[in-house]
């Protein structure tokens, strides 16, 4: 009989349940694609700061979309409105969807109130990448920093996000730290929230 075993047809696309998404993609395929992304951007720039900025912009577009998708898929169209909420959302939910694991650590900066750090022993995008000595402190994690900036910006917490190599004692390889520095107005908004939002 024709039609037996066919997936149920929805007349309205909005009635269709949102798919869980594909859980895993090939790491090799991703590594080659990312490598090409870096190589292409390298041909378009003439200094390292510019390359970093371009990778970050590429990540920003991913971050903005990931936020949209995850809020819809996992959180029933709600998004985090609190600073620590959105940070732990990035650290766990976003990281898990993108990299298959929760980030190694989320810390508050010691020197500044508005700084937070997400650290990863071995960032997935850096798994196969050795940065040449003459490129100094350049880190391809700029792409991930861009993703984080995209998520935070989309959620209403504008921030400057940068990726850094941090040498570890007793470890051959440095770890990557994503440094998040929130914009001035974020402090004000979270202050309003603690007061119950009466003044905003």
């Amino acid at each position: 009989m024709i039609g037996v075993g066919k997936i149920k047809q929805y007349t309205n696309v909005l009635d269709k349940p949102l798919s869980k998404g594909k859980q895993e993609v090939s790491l090799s395929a991703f590594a080659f694609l990312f490598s090409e992304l870096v190589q292409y951007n390298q041909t378009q720039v003439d200094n390292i700061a510019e390359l970093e900025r371009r990778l970050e912009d590429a990540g920003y577009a991913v971050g903005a979309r990931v936020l949209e998708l995850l809020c819809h898929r996992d959180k029933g169209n709600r998004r985090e409105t609190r600073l620590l909420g959105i940070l732990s959302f990035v650290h766990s939910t976003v990281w898990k969807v993108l990299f298959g694991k929760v980030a190694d650590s989320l810390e508050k900066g010691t020197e500044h109130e508005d700084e937070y750090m997400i650290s990863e022993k071995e960032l997935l995008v850096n798994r196969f990448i050795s940065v040449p000595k003459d490129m100094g402190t350049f880190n391809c994690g700029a792409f991930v920093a861009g993703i984080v900036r995209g998520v935070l910006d989309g959620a209403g917490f504008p921030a400057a996000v940068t990726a850094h190599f941090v040498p570890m004692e007793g470890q051959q390889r440095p770890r990557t730290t994503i440094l998040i520095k929130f914009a001035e107005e974020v402090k004000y908004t979270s202050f309003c929230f603690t007061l119950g939002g009466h003044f905003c």
Partner: protein
Amino acid sequence: MAAIYSLFIINKSGGLIFYKDYGSSGRMDTNDSLRLASLWHSMHAISQQLSPVVGCSGIELLEADNFDLHCFQSLTGSKFFVVCEPGTQHMEGILKIIYELYTDYVLKNPFYEMEMPIRCELFDINLLQAIQKDRVALLGR
């Protein structure tokens, strides 16, 4: 005691792109290693032409009095070869592992230019680990 004396990687046109010494004696200077690499490249090519076997892919093992040379050619024409102690076993496996490390840490590295000398920190680290692991396995036997 080192089972592997040295490791060479040559690109498809016979240029040396990676060389590493593991033995303590008989170190070669840069010029010698370059010369040896391109010499092997030509010998390998000649052996393919001379072989009576149809579809021969070139020399895989060269046995001499005081060393063995195992060679592995990838589909893209890069050749990996190790010079080791005579009678060392499982060198094909090691060469496969080295090839895998090359595809991972060299070819997936955006800062590596094809056919150029390999200068990748991660490749060096992982290669050393693989060679050491092999050495431990060898001593355990």
